[in-house]
C-alpha cells in the first residue's frame, strides 16, 4: 500500500467533484498503443517486513573491523550533533529555498557554509555545493575554460583517478582537450607533480592546471611553484584539496589558487558506499559570475531586517536556459549542512587535532611497516595522512587480509600499472594503535 491518506469515501468525493466515474478515466489520454502492458513488482511490505529486508541487505555487507582504505573517502567520526541537526525534518523535508520568507533556516545555514568554506580555503566566494568532489573538479575546469576562453585543461596524473575520469566525461561534451602532467612515479621518485614538468606541459591554450593537495598518494605538492607555473602560461590554478588537511596545510588562497574544488565527505558525512557526499567549490570574487551552482547572499526586507536569498541567479539554468553557466539545479544542501555543523562543532582546535592525529597515525603506519621489514614507502616526499607503500605480493595479501576483516588500503595497481605491489594506506583520527598492530600482524601472517 502507499502512504496515501485517502479512504474509499474520500476518493468517491473527489471523483464526483471532478465528474468522472473512475480514476481510470483520468488516464484515458494515454494512447492505447503505448499503455503499460506489465508492471510486475513485488508485493507491498509492512514496516517490520521491510525492515527485515533492509537488515538482510545490510547484513550481507561485511564492514571491516580495521580499515586503512581512503583514496578519496575517509572514515571519520560523525559527531552525534551533526546527525541530529541534519535529521531535523525542517531541514530534511524542505526544498530549494525559492520562497526566502519561509526558508531562512536553509538560506542562513548555506550562507554560513559558504563563509566556512571561504575561511577554510582562504578564498573569497564559495558556492552552496555540488554533487561531489569529482563533479566539482570537472565544473571548476569548465569554469576555467569560460574565464580564459581557452579549450584545454592540464591535470596532474597524481589527481584521484575517480576525479580524472569524471573530468574526461565532462570535457568530452564541449570538446575540451585534456593534457596530462606526469607526476614523478619513477623508482625512488617523489610521487609529486613538479613545476618544471607542469611548465613543459602547459601552453597558451591551457585554461588551467589542476593539482590535488595532498595528492592521491598523500604527497604534499609544491602548490606555490605550480601556481606560478600555471600563471606564467596565462592559465588558472585549480587546487583540489582535502578539507581536513587545511588545518595543517596552507590555504589555497595563500598560494595563488584561482579555483578550489574539494570532496567534502570528510566533514561529517558517512562513507555510505559512495554517496551522497558534497562537492565544495571556491574562487575569487572577480570570477563569481562564471561560477556554476547556487549562491546565497545577504540582503534586507522592506522593514530593514536582514535576510538571505538565492542570488546572482542570472547565471543559472532556470533563468538563462541554454546560456547558463551549468545545468546544475539541485545541489547537496543537506550534506552542506552536515559540513557546516561539523566545522562549527570541531572549531579550529578540533580540526587541527583531527588532522594532526590522522597525520601522525599515517606516519605511524609507514614507520611500523618499515620497521617490521614488511615494505617500504614507494615515494620520497612528505605526506599528510595517506601513504603509498610497496609490499611484495600485495594483491594476494590484501585479499587474504580482507577476508579476515582487515582492509589494507587501496591497491594502486588498479589505476597505475607501474605501481604494482603498492598499497595506499590512509589513517584518520579513528585509526588506533591497535589497528596498526593488527595491520602489521596481518601483513606478517600473509608473508
Amino acid at each position, binding site marked *: 500500500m502507499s502512504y496515501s491518506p485517502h479512504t474509499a469515501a474520500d476518493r468517491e468525493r473527489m471523483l464526483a467533484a471532478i465528474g468522472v466515474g473512475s480514476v481510470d478515466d483520468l488516464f484515458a489520454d494515454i494512447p492505447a498503443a503505448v*499503455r503499460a502492458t506489465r*508492471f510486475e513488482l513485488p508485493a507491498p511490505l509492512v514496516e517490520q517486513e521491510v525492515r527485515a529486508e533492509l537488515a538482510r541487505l545490510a547484513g550481507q555487507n561485511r564492514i571491516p573491523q580495521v580499515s586503512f582504505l581512503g583514496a578519496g573517502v575517509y572514515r571519520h567520526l560523525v559527531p552525534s550533533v551533526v546527525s541530529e*541537526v541534519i535529521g531535523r525534518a525542517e531541514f530534511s523535508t524542505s526544498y530549494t529555498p525559492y520562497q526566502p*520568507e519561509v526558508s531562512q533556516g536553509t538560506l*542562513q545555514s548555506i550562507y554560513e557554509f559558504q563563509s566556512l568554506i571561504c575561511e577554510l580555503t582562504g578564498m573569497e566566494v564559495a558556492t552552496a555545493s555540488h554533487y561531489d568532489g569529482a563533479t566539482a573538479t570537472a565544473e571548476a575546469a569548465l569554469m576555467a575554460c569560460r574565464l580564459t576562453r581557452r579549450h584545454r585543461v592540464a591535470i596532474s596524473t597524481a589527481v584521484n583517478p575517480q576525479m580524472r575520469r569524471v573530468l574526461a566525461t565532462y570535457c568530452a561534451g564541449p570538446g575540451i582537450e585534456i593534457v596530462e602532467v606526469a607526476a614523478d612515479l619513477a623508482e625512488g621518485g617523489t610521487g609529486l607533480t613538479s613545476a618544471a614538468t607542469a611548465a613543459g606541459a602547459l601552453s597558451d591554450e591551457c585554461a588551467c592546471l589542476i593539482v590535488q593537495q595532498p595528492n592521491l598518494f598523500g604527497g604534499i605538492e609544491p602548490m606555490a611553484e605550480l601556481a606560478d607555473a600555471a600563471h606564467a602560461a596565462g592559465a588558472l590554478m585549480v587546487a583540489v584539496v582535502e578539507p581536513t588537511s587545511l588545518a595543517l596545510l596552507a590555504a589555497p588562497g595563500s598560494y595563488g589558487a584561482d579555483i578550489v574544488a574539494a570532496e567534502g565527505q570528510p566533514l561529517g558525512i558517512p562513507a555510505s558506499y559512495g554517496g*551522497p557526499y558534497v562537492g565544495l567549490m571556491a574562487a575569487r570574487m572577480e570570477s563569481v559570475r562564471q561560477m556554476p551552482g547556487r549562491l546565497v547572499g545577504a*540582503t534586507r526586507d522592506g522593514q530593514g531586517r536582514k535576510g538571505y536569498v538565492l542570488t546572482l541567479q542570472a547565471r543559472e539554468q532556470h533563468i538563462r536556459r541554454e546560456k547558463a553557466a551549468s545545468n546544475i539545479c539541485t545541489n547537496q544542501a543537506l550534506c552542506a549542512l552536515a559540513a557546516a555543523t561539523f566545522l562549527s562543532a570541531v572549531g579550529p582546535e578540533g580540526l587541527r587535532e583531527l588532522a594532526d592525529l590522522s597525520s601522525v597515525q599515517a606516519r605511524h603506519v609507514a614507520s611500523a611497516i618499515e620497521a617490521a621489514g614488511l615494505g617500504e614507502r614507494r615515494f620520497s616526499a612528505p605526506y*599528510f595522512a595517506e601513504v603509498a607503500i610497496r609490499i611484495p605480493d600485495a594483491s594476494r595479501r590484501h585479499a587474504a587480509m580482507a577476508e579476515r576483516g582487515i582492509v589494507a588500503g587501496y591497491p594502486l595497481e588498479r589505476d597505475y600499472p607501474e605501481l604494482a605491489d603498492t598499497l595506499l594506506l590512509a589513517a584518520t583520527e579513528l585509526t588506533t594503535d591497535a589497528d596498526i598492530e593488527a595491520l602489521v600482524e596481518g601483513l606478517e601472517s600473509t608473508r
Partner: protein
Amino acid sequence: MSVLERPASGDASGRGAAFTSPEAGEALTIVEPLIFDASRPGRRAVRYPLPSDAARAAASDQPAIPEAAARVTAPRLPEVAELDLLRHFNRLSHLNHAIELGFYPLGSCTMKYNPKVNEWAARLPGLADSHPLDPDALAQGSLELEWLLAELLKEISGFAAISLQPAAGAHGELTGLLMARAYHRSRGEGEQRTKVLVPDSSHGTNPATATMVGYTAVTIPSNARGGIDLEALRAALGPDTAALMITNPSTLGIFEDQIDQVIAAVQGAGAIAYMDGANLNAILGRFRPGEAGFDVMHFNLHKTFSTPHGGGGPGAGPVGVSERLAPFLPTPLPLLVAGDPDEVRRNAWAGRATPGARFALEEADARPTSIGKVRAFTGNFGMFVRAYTYIRSNGGDGLREVSNDAVLAANYLRVRLADAFDLPYDRICKHEVVFSGRRQKRQHGISTLDIAKAILDHRIHPPTIYFPLIVEEALMIEPTETESLETLDAFVEIMHGIAQQASEDPDALRRAPLTTPVGRLDEAAAARRPDLRHAFD
C-alpha cells in the same frame, strides 16, 4: 527597537539579551545571529584523543610536513559549546517551512511525505559505513541493493538497462545526452547531428544540458492544447537532430496524448527520444517509457520515490536506456556475476538471500563504448537505500495507488479552483495543474508573486510560480498523494479567500507576507552588491 526586530532573549551568542518588557499580544520574531557571532575562544563541542607517545615516536622517523607547505593562520571557524551549536541550528530550522510542518504544493518538485522507515534504513551501520572502494567480497549487500534497485527501475520504466550513477535529474540529463552523442558517433553521424529539440514548456535544465554537451538547443512550440506541436516538431526534425528531450507528463501536468507519434517521428529521423522523467510519479503502472519506445529517461528518485529533498539536495537521477544505448552507459555497473537473475529476484522479493549468488562492480575498462564516469563511484547510494525501501514498502499495488491518488488530488484542485483562477489548458491533468493569475493581474494589479506571498501567511508553501514559461503568471500546483482531503479543502478555501481579497483589498496582498520571520527581501540589492560570506571585522 521595534517589536519585530527584537532578538530572542538568550540567543546562542548571549547577545541581544538586554531586558525589555514584553507587550501583550506581541509576536516575537526570532532573529538568529550567525554562528560566528556566538564564537568565544576556547569553547568546544567536539574533542579528539591525542596521539599516543608510541605513535608520536614512530611517526618521528617519517618526513614531517614541510614548513613552506604549512598553514600559517588558523581558519576562523566558530568556537561554540555543543548546546549552543544545537540551539543555533534548531532555531534556524524553525525559520523553515517543511513537508512535516505543512502543505507544500510546489509544482514540479513532488513534495510528498518522506517515510521515516527509509531514514532508518539509510542509517543502518551495515550500509552507512560501507566504503565505496571496499573489496566486492565485503560489499555484497551494497552491490545487491544496487542491482535489485536497478531491476525494479527496469520493470517500472520498461527500459532494458539502468545506471544509478547520476546524482540528480539534471545530471541524468547530462548522462543521457552524452550517451545519445556516443551513439551517433558510433554510427558515424556524430558530426552531423548537432541539435537538441526541446518544447517551450521544458525545464531550464534541458537546454542548459544541451549546451553542456556541445549541442545547440532548438525550441519547439506547444500547440493550443498544451502538447508539443507535432507539425512544428516534424518540420524541425532532420539529419542534424541529435535528440528530442520531452517531459511527459509535461510541465503543464498534461500527458502528451500524441506521444506515440512523437516517438515515431523522432526515431524516424534517426534521433534519440529522451524523456525527462521528472513527472514519472504521475504514471506509475500506466505508462512505461521504455516499453513505449523512448531511448532514455532519467528518474528523479527524490520525487517519484520520495527521498527527502534536504533543502535542495541530495537527490539521485538514475537513467534507464533502450538496448541500443545500453553499451554507452556510465561505468561501473553493479553486476550479478554468479547466480540466476530470476532466482535472485524471487528470493529478494521474499526477503531471502540467494545461496551462491555473487555481485561485483564492473571493471573500469570492461566496456570501451561507455561514456565513462559522470560521478565518483556508483552514485548517491544513501538515496538508493531510501528509494529501494520505498518501492518495497509500496509494492506494485502501492505504486499504482501513488499515481492514482496524486492524479486524483490534482484534478480535484483543478475543478475546485477553476472558478477562482484562469485555467489556460482546461483538460484532465496528471499530478499537477497549472493555473494563471492573469485575471488577478489585469483586473486588480495583483501579480502571481503577490498571491504566492499571501499564501505564506496561511502556513502553506506556495505553488511553483512563473513556470512553465508559456503560461502567463503561472501558478503550478502539485498536491501529491499524501495530503488528506481536509488539507486539500482547506487550501481551496484559502485560495478562494485570496482571490476574493485580490478584488476587495488588493493592497493587503501587496503587503504580504506579514507573519513570516522576514518580509519580502530585496533580491535586486542582493545581486547588485553581493554579500556572500561573513565579514569577520
